[in-house]
């Protein structure tokens, strides 16, 4: 989900950045390795633009995992049963773990954890637009697992073969863990959809609100995603935004049908010739507004994230002091 181009589209492009003079022989050898589906490892030579694109993509991905804990974390104490509470707690812990795998993988490219966290907290770094929508009811937790994690899985499965080794390995672990996230969400939706009229309405309302933002998670349409071609050539991305979006619609609509919920798109129709669903236009202005930071709860999310970081400062300081004390003690012995 987090592999999309999240730059503001009105921002001036900087084509010169891509044109850093690279050693042509090294560049040819690199391109050949990547084209042959070889993995690139941290100490291998790589073009500056490849490194830069990866750092941006991986750190955005990591930030999304970390911020993604916030909307769900809000619901841990309000989960309707002990079972749901334990499951949600495990899911949120996984998201934290996923953020850590990805930060560590990005650090192999020479960026520091501190730089990345500072970029997130200062608002310079982007994260998935989806987390700037509010979670109003318990059904939203179901919809997030089902749709948001479902979209993430579609995006992440091909990334297990992304050309940068540490990123690919992180994705293998993440994909292995992600499947339960989607299934627990779908289970929540199934129970609500089969419940009382109020519960049913709640489930439908959550689907109505999360459907379009979920489609936006795949990023802008291909004709407005200037870096896609380069990223695909370098095997940083393996499928385009529109291809993945179509795949998501095709697998998700029958799931909604199966539990009697209705996808909120009057233009949605099965296209026999294509073997796919046709669907209505996505409101890209809304997407770009959220990318610019105008999401409904964007400010709350960053406030909560920064507060968590600052409230934990004393723990970090204590751990550092404790370690330093033991270094001194060991030296004296």
């Amino acid at each position: 989900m987090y592999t999309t181009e999240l730059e503001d589209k009105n921002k001036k492009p900087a084509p010169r950045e891509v044109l850093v003079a690279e050693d042509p022989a090294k560049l040819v050898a690199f391109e050949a390795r990547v084209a042959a589906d070889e993995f690139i490892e941290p100490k291998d030579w790589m073009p500056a633009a490849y490194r830069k694109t990866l750092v941006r993509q991986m750190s955005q991905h990591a930030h999304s995992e970390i911020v993604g804990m916030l909307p769900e974390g809000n619901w841990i104490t309000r989960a309707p049963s002990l079972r749901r509470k334990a499951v949600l707690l495990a899911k949120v812990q996984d998201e934290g773990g996923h953020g850590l795998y990805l930060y560590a993988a990005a650090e192999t490219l020479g960026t520091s954890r501190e730089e990345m966290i500072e970029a997130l907290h200062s608002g310079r770094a982007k994260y998935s637009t989806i987390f700037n929508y509010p979670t109003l009811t318990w059904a939203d937790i179901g919809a997030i697992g089902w749709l948001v994690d479902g979209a993430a899985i579609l995006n992440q499965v091909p990334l297990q073969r992304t050309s940068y080794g540490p990123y690919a390995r992180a994705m293998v672990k993440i994909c292995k863990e992600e499947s339960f996230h989607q299934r627990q969400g779908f289970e929540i939706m199934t129970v609500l959809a089969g419940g009382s009229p109020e519960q049913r309405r709640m489930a439908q309302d959550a689907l109505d609100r999360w459907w379009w933002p979920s489609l936006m998670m795949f990023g802008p349409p291909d004709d407005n995603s200037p870096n896609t071609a380069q990223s695909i050539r370098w095997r940083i991305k393996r499928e385009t935004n529109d291809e993945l979006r179509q795949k998501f619609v095709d697998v998700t609509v029958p799931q909604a049908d199966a539990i009697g919920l209705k996808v909120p798109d009057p233009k949605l129709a099965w296209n026999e010739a294509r073997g796919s669903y046709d669907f209505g236009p996505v409101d890209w202005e809304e997407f770009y507004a959220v990318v610019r930071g105008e999401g409904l709860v964007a400010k709350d999310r960053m406030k909560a994230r920064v507060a968590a970081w600052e409230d934990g400062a004393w723990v970090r300081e204590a751990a550092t002091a404790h370690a330093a004390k033991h270094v001194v003690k060991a030296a004296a012995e």
Partner: protein
Amino acid sequence: MNNDWPLWEVFVRAKHGLSHKHAGSVHAADARMALESARDTYTRRMEGVSLWVVPSAQIVASDPGEAAALFEPAADKVYRHPTFYVIPEHVKNI
């Protein structure tokens, strides 16, 4: 700018009888904390029965630029593999 805690490489033994395998890395102030973070980060689903954490700075790695000199000489020494040798078909147990 880098005030991060030191980086530790994490190795997990999946089960007794297998060697420890690199799983990833964690930042930690000291070894004890590195072990605890490694446990939370890399073994949430019974992935292991034992952990090693090693300060990343202590790892000495081969240079990819020397990969050819180091590893290619093995490529033309197929006689190191048993299939290189021709044994009459009626001879068994060899």
